[in-house]
């Protein structure tokens, strides 16, 4: 009998090795990120729901027009009415913190791929891997590293959601016309002046599109992360599945969709505003 090729064995060994040897590192990370997420959840939940609705609706109105503003009010009221307010805020906190971490790592990586062809070549397959690997798979090492809770959820989310912002940051910077880069250099710009005064501002619309996608992917992953007790709306959906409660499952799902639309339109509005300003 031909023996099965067993890659999994090696990955297991590697993960176990990481878990054993970097335990203190993961613990520190767990405490830090955990504190951050819980803090954010606490803040979002301490604000009265109607204040939060007004704030979000105002932001949506300013960035994307009156229609989305009204939709935000109605949608969020529906979520509150279904009794999912607290879960929604938990999910929002998890999405925002995961996105924040993903941007913190992803934007510099994107800049690096724009500057170095080698980095670009090396990172591309890794990004493909991160993006296409079924999202559930990340949950396993996440649990091994961090146990159960929101932190492993955020960890898996960051890995799954980071690729778009890396790619689009790199693309945005590479798309800045050569003549502008040359002109800036010829005026005596240092490398950091070139990056911060010219390349990043000009790449901003593209980077914002990447951020938008990262947020959307975070949201979808955060729901899946409920399987490892990350909490939030995912938990409601999961309960619907495991207990065969069709109604509950859909209610949770609808809340996710409402949150997704609001987040998407606000960030898209940001990107479009930048584009318009540029074209003006």
């Amino acid at each position: 009998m031909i023996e099965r090729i067993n890659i999994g064995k090696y990955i297991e060994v590697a993960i176990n090795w990481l878990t054993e040897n970097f335990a203190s590192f993961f613990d520190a990370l767990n405490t830090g990120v955990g504190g951050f997420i819980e803090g954010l959840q606490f803040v979002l939940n301490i604000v009265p729901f109607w204040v939060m609705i007004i704030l979000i609706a105002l932001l949506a109105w300013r960035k994307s027009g009156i229609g989305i503003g009204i939709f935000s009010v109605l949608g969020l009221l529906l979520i509150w009415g279904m009794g999912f307010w607290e879960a929604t805020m938990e999910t929002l906190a998890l999405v925002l913190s995961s996105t924040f971490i993903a941007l913190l790592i992803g934007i510099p990586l994107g800049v690096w791929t724009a500057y170095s062809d080698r980095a670009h070549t090396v990172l591309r397959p890794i990004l493909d891997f991160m993006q296409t690997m079924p999202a559930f798979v990340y949950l396993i090492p996440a649990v091994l590293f961090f146990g159960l809770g929101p932190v492993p959820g955020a960890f898996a989310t960051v890995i799954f959601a980071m690729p778009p912002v890396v790619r689009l940051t790199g693309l945005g910077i590479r798309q800045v016309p050569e003549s502008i880069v040359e002109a800036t250099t010829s005026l005596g710009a240092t490398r950091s002046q070139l990056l911060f005064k010219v390349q990043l501002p000009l790449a901003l619309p593209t980077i914002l599109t990447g951020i938008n996608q990262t947020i959307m992917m975070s949201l979808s992953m955060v729901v899946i992360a409920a399987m490892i007790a990350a909490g939030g709306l995912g938990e409601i959906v999961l309960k619907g599945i495991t207990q065969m409660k069709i109604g509950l499952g859909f209610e949770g799902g609808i809340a996710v969709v409402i949150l997704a639309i609001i987040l998407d339109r606000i960030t898209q509005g940001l990107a479009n505003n930048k584009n318009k300003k540029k074209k003006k």
Partner: protein
Amino acid sequence: MSKIEIKDLFLIFGAEKTKAFNQLQKGKSKSDILKHTGCTIAVQNANLTINDGEIFVIMGLSGSGKSSLLRCINRLVDPTHGEVVINGTDISKANDKQLLEVRRKVMAMVFQNFGLLPHKTVLENIGFGLELQGVDKSQRDEKALYSMELVGLKGYEDQMVSELSGGMQQRVGLARALANDPEVLLMDEAFSALDPLIRAQMQDELLALQAKMKKTIVFITHDLDEAIKLGDRIAIMKDGVIVQVGTSEEILTEPADDYVASFVENVDRSKIITASSISLKDPIVARFKKEGPEVIIRKMRKRNLTLLPVVDEENKLIGEVYLKDLLQLRKQNEKHIDSIIRQYSHTVHEDTIIEDIIPLMTKTNSPIWVVDENKEFKGIVPLSSLVFEVTGKDKEEIDQLVQNAQDL
């Protein structure tokens, strides 16, 4: 005085530059080097001296390496070998800090595609170089406004650059370069993207500005007419090699090789060639007071002429004498030519262009005398030279034409 000196400069693109350079030194051909190393040679052994205060044009077709050579001057591209000496220091060996200083203070560049920042206003764009230097806002606005005035952009401060036409955008590019008050302006096909009318206008304005500013300008173009109009001196490049350097007149009258010759073939020569290029130097003249009718007639018969210019002892032109008058004089046994000297009809200066000489030709049968400001005699433009120059045919062809006409 020389401002920029380019010495033995090579620029090679590709991974194995050193290998390619060594092969080039051994005399291998470019196509061989490309095959063996994958490297292309953009500039090959360039040597140039660019003087303080001149407009130096580097001309060539696309792919001739002219833009690459220009980029070696402010090191947007690092030369593979050789030196670029500016104000006595070799920029190709400058460290980052020195390089930054040179780019900020000594030279500025204007680009074909403008290279403006679309997210900033006109004023912010022009002050951008100063912003990079850390100049505070009020001071850089003041300087930016001054250079806006120089290029005729006053009133456009708060517009976004993308709202401007091409010509206006390039004014912003020029103003941005001038705002740093550089000693050297590098202009890379600066007017090539503009339509012909605007382009001619920008050329005129650049010349007017240059008359005031006296910067050292290195101007890249693929257009010979532009090169001739702007350039105090012109370098012609082909396949990475500088083929010829000279004034426009030198290039038109003495093209270094067939390539340059074919290039200059279609230029309107009558606007560039001057009297001094087509005049006979040291022609025979009649010397007033020194020479009597007998001597002058002898001179004329030798050359089969009927007319000679008369100069005084200081070599100043005072008139002309005709053979028939001289013969008359001889009959009368007169020894002095005072009585028969006629007022000369036309004179031109050495730097008069052919276009301005031709109209004179229709009013006279005599050759045209060339003098300087003090009326000192400098030479003769024979009518035949004018005909050769205007028709572009040589003597034999003209003789043939005349023969044909007579046969008819």
